[in-house]
């Protein structure tokens, strides 16, 4: 027979010992990546004509030296960032249980709509007759936000949740001043997110902490006892940072108003109740909404966010500029932005301006796309599924992990503490790092501060039951092993991530915050 004798073995063969060092330093699909400054070789990634310009119109301020930027071609730049991206965990890769962050699915339709040239390529100061579609979009989003919350007004310009908190507190400050009063104290629960007291201090108030009860709820009696003629407002998160709905909220709101103060609500946990409870029915005066949490705009590695603030009747007049109003002078259905404090309509007393232009339009388009896609029934279902999933996790894990408030249901997030790890030598940190080796981003750690070694798990409504079951199985096993003092997985975890634990002490003691050219190398050149 004639034979093609260039056969090759087709069995699986022997395993490559994992400990063998590679020549390149890369390991299969896991690539190391240098800094762009280290890849610099004076190439260019854009083709632009070389135009000469004279000095005569530069006021003598022409640049004398180089900027010092690295030069790479387009293929090199793309490869650099693709390789970097592969070192990141993301919602699209797996369950991201960060409590209080609402890591839900980021729909791609949002991205497509935000990139329509009529939205993406629109200048904020273009003549208003050419931006009516954008203004109408903002108006529609304002309708959704006010109707979902049962509040009469909303300030759209804050650029993030913390920025929204500041907006709310400044509106409160203005309202108090308009009454001719001077109130400097703000009551904040000890379980509050750090932005609350930081914002209160930033806005010129002093912070007075209200304790939590052993059951995780704010101590309403202690809160009422602290009310007085010098209290400007309380700041409450509801559901609170322990994942519990503050059942006494309506009584608290009444007491606060009777004392002449205002009720600021931190809306970070709105995903538990959107479409089910209207915060306006609870008596709040202001609440920021994190569009990047509840309304699915992408987290983008840390931003951008958007934090519009719904306002009660008592605060609506003080909303900052710009104000969006129906344009009586224009064609039917047209809108106008009022950007001048002095031109505010009758009754409006804006406290000022939060930022340039009109707010995070790119995030408005995405949020409205999400809202229209879900509809009110979908928003409601999403909240119910979020609460159901968190309770499913709580019910499935509380036999091995300690849930300080596990006797009753939680809202959209389940809180555990580190009592179940006592005596094992494993800390909350070790537990979290072991999750990384299992292919999961850890839950929120060490927050809220009111429990020891907190672990706050928020699955959101975007997880299938199979995904939840898998997650539960892994955590259940980890907890069981830790309690049995089988600590191999935990000691020195993570072992399998692109990096082992990083020396944060060194980073803080001797901060290196930028790349600098090597002086010896430069001298040699």
């Amino acid at each position, binding site marked *: 027979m004639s034979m093609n004798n260039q056969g090759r073995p087709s069995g699986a063969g022997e395993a490559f010992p994992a400990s063998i060092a590679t020549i390149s330093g890369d390991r299969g699909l896991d690539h190391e990546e240098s*800094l762009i400054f280290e890849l610099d070789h004076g190439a260019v990634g854009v083709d*632009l004509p070389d*135009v000469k*310009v004279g000095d005569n*119109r530069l006021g003598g*301020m022409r640049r004398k030296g180089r900027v010092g*930027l690295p*030069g790479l071609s*387009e293929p090199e*730049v793309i490869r650099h*960032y693709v390789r970097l*991206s592969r*070192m*990141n965990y993301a919602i*699209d*890769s797996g369950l991201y249980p*960060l409590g209080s962050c609402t890591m839900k699915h980021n729909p791609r339709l949002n991205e497509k709509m935000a990139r329509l040239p009529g*939205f993406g*390529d*629109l*200048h904020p*100061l*273009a003549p208003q007759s050419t931006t009516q579609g*954008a203004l*109408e979009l903002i108006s529609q989003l304002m309708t959704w936000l006010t109707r979902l919350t049962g509040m009469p007004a909303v300030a759209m310009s804050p*650029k*993030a949740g913390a920025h929204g908190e*500041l907006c709310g507190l*400044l509106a409160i400050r203005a309202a108090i001043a308009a009454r001719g009063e001077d109130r400097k104290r703000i009551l904040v629960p000890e379980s509050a997110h750090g932005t609350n007291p930081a914002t209160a*201090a930033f806005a010129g108030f002093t912070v007075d902490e209200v304790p939590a009860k052993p059951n995780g709820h704010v101590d309403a009696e202690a809160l009422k006892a602290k009310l007085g003629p010098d209290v400007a407002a309380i700041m409450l998160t509801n559901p609170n940072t322990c994942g519990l709905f503050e059942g006494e909220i*309506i009584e608290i709101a009444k007491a606060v108003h009777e004392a002449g103060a205002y009720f600021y609500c931190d809306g970070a946990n709105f995903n538990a109740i959107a479409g089910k*409870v209207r915060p306006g*029915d*609870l008596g709040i005066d202001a609440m920021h909404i994190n569009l990047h949490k509840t309304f699915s705009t992408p987290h*983008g*590695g*840390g*931003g*951008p966010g958007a934090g519009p603030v719904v306002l009660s009747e008592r605060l609506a007049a003080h909303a900052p500029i710009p104000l969006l109003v129906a344009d009586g002078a224009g064609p039917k259905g047209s809108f106008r932005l009022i*950007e*001048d404090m002095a031109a505010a309509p009758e009754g409006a007393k804006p406290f*000022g*301006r939060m*930022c340039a232009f*009109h707010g*995070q339009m790119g995030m408005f388009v995405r949020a409205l796309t999400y809202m229209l*896609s879900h509809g*009110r029934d*979908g928003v409601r279902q999403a909240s*119910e599924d979020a*609460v159901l999933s968190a309770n499913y996790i709580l019910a499935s894990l509380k036999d091995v992990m300690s849930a300080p408030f596990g006797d*009753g249901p939680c*809202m959209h997030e389940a809180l555990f503490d580190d009592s179940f790890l006592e005596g094992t030598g494993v800390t909350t940190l070790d537990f979290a790092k072991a999750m990384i080796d299992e292919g999961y981003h850890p839950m929120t750690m060490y927050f809220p501060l009111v429990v020891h070694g907190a672990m706050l798990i928020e699955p959101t*409504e975007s*997880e299938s*039951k199979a995904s939840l079951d898998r997650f539960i199985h892994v955590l259940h096993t980890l907890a069981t092993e830790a309690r049995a003092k089988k600590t191999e997985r935990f000691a020195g975890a993570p072992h399998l*991530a692109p990096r082992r634990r990083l*020396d944060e002490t060194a*980073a803080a003691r001797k901060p290196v915050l930028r*790349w600098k050219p090597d002086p010896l190398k430069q001298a040699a050149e």
Partner: protein
Amino acid sequence: MRYLPLTPDDRQAMLARIGAPDVDTLFRDVPKAALAPLAKFDLPDTQGELEVERALSKLAARNVAAGSAPFFCGAGAYKHHVPSAVDHLIQRSEFLTSYTPYQPEIAQGTLQYLFEFQTQVALLTGMEVANASLYDGSTATAEAVLMAQRITKRGKAILSGGLHPHYAETVETVASLAGAVSRTPVTPGSAEDIIGLIDEDTACVVVQSPDVFGLIRNLRPIADAAHAKGALLIAVVTEIVSLGLLEPPGAQGADIVAAEGQSIGNGLNFGGPYVGLFATREKFLRQMPGRLCGETVDAEGRRGFVLTLSTREQHIRREKATSNICTNSGLCCLAFTIHLSLLGEEGLTRLARINHAKASALAGKLAGLPGVELVTDAFFNEFTIRLPKPTAPLVEALAAKGVIAGVPASRLLPREASAANLLILAATETNTDDDFAALIDALKGVI
């Protein structure tokens, strides 16, 4: 519902494990009166992708995109060409759907690009250290003023009349809590006398260059005068591409630079999201707001990056934090850094020169028209002209004719008499000779 994976069977099984008969049992802490029935929400129900796309496309179609007409608006937001690679890269799942890098072991992608971003911003501005971005240029300016008040332990802030009015209003809204904020008179086309106003109570002076009218300023004498009285100079830059051709604020003695990075990597987006750049001297490091990314090593000695110096921030310092800021501008930051990596030294230099050449050519043509007076004689890619009549109605009239002729100064300074007849125009690499011809034709028809 396409975004919700749970099926009715799943929900039943989950309720069974929890031991609750229905999902409303889980909401038992909510006062009965507060549980709203669906009918209480006067909003539409679920729609499919097709319907939603249709509805939003209709809204988008009612706007005049900058790229669809001869377009000359600037005044704090600039139309530049962003290479297609940028938008593809920022939409990679691992960038788009990741979060703040709290767990550095699985966030080295984000942390490394933040480190590169911080380096790029420091290089561009000529400063020693930069943070991982703030929301935008206006809030960055406000944070800079607060930082100067903390450092000098003084309250008085003096804002140049050439500072973008939205920026000035933003600063006034937050910084007047800590001290007196005042603005010098507005002097379009010339430098106001800010030096004479600096005294021993001054925390900082805030000067924008190129200013809102496009005028390039010389910051060195102002920096020297401020330092002589123990005050700080805050330099503001709203068109970051200008630093490809002009002396950076760091080389002129600025103590803090607050800038808008939108021009690089980020589209106009009707005003946001943008990206605030913030840079300062090493000695002021611990007073700096915002996130910081630092270099370190891991347990195996490999180089890695982490968020650092977090004790300045709200989640640790709470009411003693340097700022209340939590988010940075993440993805906008990444877009900036990718675009700047594609440009590099040579590309940025060329881009800046092209911008200045375009604006110079346009200014020359406009100055030749009867009735048109060029107000700014030193500019980068934006300048101001004076016309014989108020420019706001004129701009609307030209828009009706399909030309977006720039920003009338009265839009930003509605009660400044000298602004009524002024028009601020920007010309970038995206403008063509046809655009210029269309503008000039249209202008001739109305003045």
